[in-house]
């Protein structure tokens, strides 16, 4: 059954959209990530214009993260104070990201920057995660008790000025790294159409030493608020949010995420992280090859402005 997307101005199979939404939702439920970094590339590879794909996926990420954020909130797993700082910086970053998105689109470099951005981000995050999970798995096999890093271990970031107390995270740290993380993720998220959970979680854990019980909830709450703002910014600035496309993806994604979360209970944490790392690396390699290999067609075209 074909469905006509009014903003993308093409018709796509409805089952395909709900299907990829569901598949990505399953993975995101399994690994506890937003799934934007999977959906945006999939849509681009299946012919949806890059700008529409990026802008619409931001809407989908909001839906995918809402139910998770709510359930964490009920369990008290969200540090609202910390999330607020991240969101404010994130929205500023998103303004920059959306402006850069528009500039790059008009200059014809959007596709390149998105590919390069995914390559660098997913590549580095994937390698870090793979290293970490392999080390954990090996140690476990050798029978060594894995000692989690304690939240009160300090690093250079904890010596910065302008300290604020975050009660729920039991942290007394400078706001500067918090704002920097928010700003960076806001910018990248708006530019690449990803929630940034896969950058946010490691940044909170390894840089700020946020305790494990509030990391995911806070990250999810931040993603919901920031992606909601980004969706509105994209709708106003580039007018390329396709609500029908976003809705089809949402329906699949929300349903898939529940099954993913159920399946995740049967796998161990290190295995899950190892699998996610492999998945992230595979996408990074796909983008990398696209940049380096001789393109099938060196010529491409696009419309400047709207149809008249």
């Amino acid at each position: 059954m074909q469905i006509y997307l009014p903003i993308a101005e093409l018709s796509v199979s409805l089952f395909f959209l709900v299907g990829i939404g569901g598949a990505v939702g399953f993975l995101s439920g399994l690994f506890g990530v937003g799934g934007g970094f999977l959906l945006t590339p999939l849509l681009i590879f299946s012919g949806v214009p890059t700008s529409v794909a990026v802008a619409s996926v931001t809407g989908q990420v909001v839906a995918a993260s809402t139910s998770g954020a709510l359930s964490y909130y009920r369990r008290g797993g969200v540090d609202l104070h910390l999330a607020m700082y991240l969101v404010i910086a994130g929205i500023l970053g998103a303004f920059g990201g959306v402006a850069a998105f528009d500039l790059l689109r008009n200059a014809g470099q959007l596709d390149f920057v998105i590919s390069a951005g995914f390559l660098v981000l997913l590549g580095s995050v994937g390698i870090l995660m793979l290293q970490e999970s392999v080390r954990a798995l090996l140690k476990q096999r050798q029978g060594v008790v894995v000692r989690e890093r304690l939240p009160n271990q300090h690093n250079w970031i904890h010596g910065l000025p302008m300290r604020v107390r975050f009660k729920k995270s039991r942290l007394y740290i400078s706001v500067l790294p918090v704002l920097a993380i928010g700003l960076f993720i806001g910018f990248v998220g708006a530019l690449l159409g990803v929630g940034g959970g896969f950058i946010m979680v490691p940044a909170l854990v390894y840089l700020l030493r946020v305790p494990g019980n509030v990391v995911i909830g806070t990250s999810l709450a931040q993603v919901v608020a920031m992606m909601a703002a980004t969706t509105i910014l994209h709708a106003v600035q580039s007018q390329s949010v396709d609500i029908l496309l976003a809705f089809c993806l949402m329906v699949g994604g929300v349903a898939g995420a529940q099954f993913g979360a159920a399946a995740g209970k049967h796998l161990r944490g290190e295995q899950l992280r190892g699998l996610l790392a492999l998945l992230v690396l595979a996408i990074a390699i796909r983008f990398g090859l696209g940049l380096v290999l001789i393109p099938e067609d060196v010529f491409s075209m696009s419309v400047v402005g709207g149809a008249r």
Partner: protein
Amino acid sequence: MIRLFVLVIAALLLVAIPARAERLISALSNDKIEITSSFDGERLTFYGSIAPDAGSEQKYVVGPYHIAVVILGPTQDRVAREKTNVLGMWLNTDQVTFKGFPSYFHVLSSGRLREITDVTTLTTNFILPESHVLVPNAAGWWQTMVFGRELIRLMTEERLFGVQENGVNFLSDTFYSAQLTLPSNAPPGPYIAQTYLIKNGAIIARKSEGFAVRKIGFERFLAQSATQYPLFYGLACVALALATGWLGGVLFRR
């Protein structure tokens, strides 16, 4: 003096030979193509017949005739880009913008275009796809030619440009019909269908019809809100996303 003499002779000849002009009567199957949620392209039929011109004493017309139907979509500014290898990576490095380029262009004809008339007639009347890139461009002649050819190729791959040299069928000596399948990615807007009647290589009559491709109902509402009330549209998207996420969580909690 000689010039005047020639003119008089010509005028006499015109009077002496009975006017043999043809008239083209044409129509198309639908003047509105409506894009609904299940829009998957649409088939259009162009048909018509050739008759003696009004006021002439001719009772019938004598062929052979050829028909070319040119379907032209709304114009856009389109840019063609070329990737080159920079430090091992493929980047868009060169581009040419074509202003007022048709977003849709198809030619249906009853025979091979270069056999039914000459290239000059084809290009000056914009019957060939290539004629759209021959217009002056700030990028210079060479760049325009190179990028224009590639742009036409890309448009053809997207099924937005095309030439069907067997697209027009004559059902009798004077009655023709032509079918066009408009693809689902045909851009909405006003379209023009220009029909040319060609005899012995010359265009002897032409007629144009318009039709509109437009979104209707819910699709139209969505597309209009996205451009006219972008803030509300964005807010609605977010509200929808929050509601879907919340509902999903509630439905599957059990």
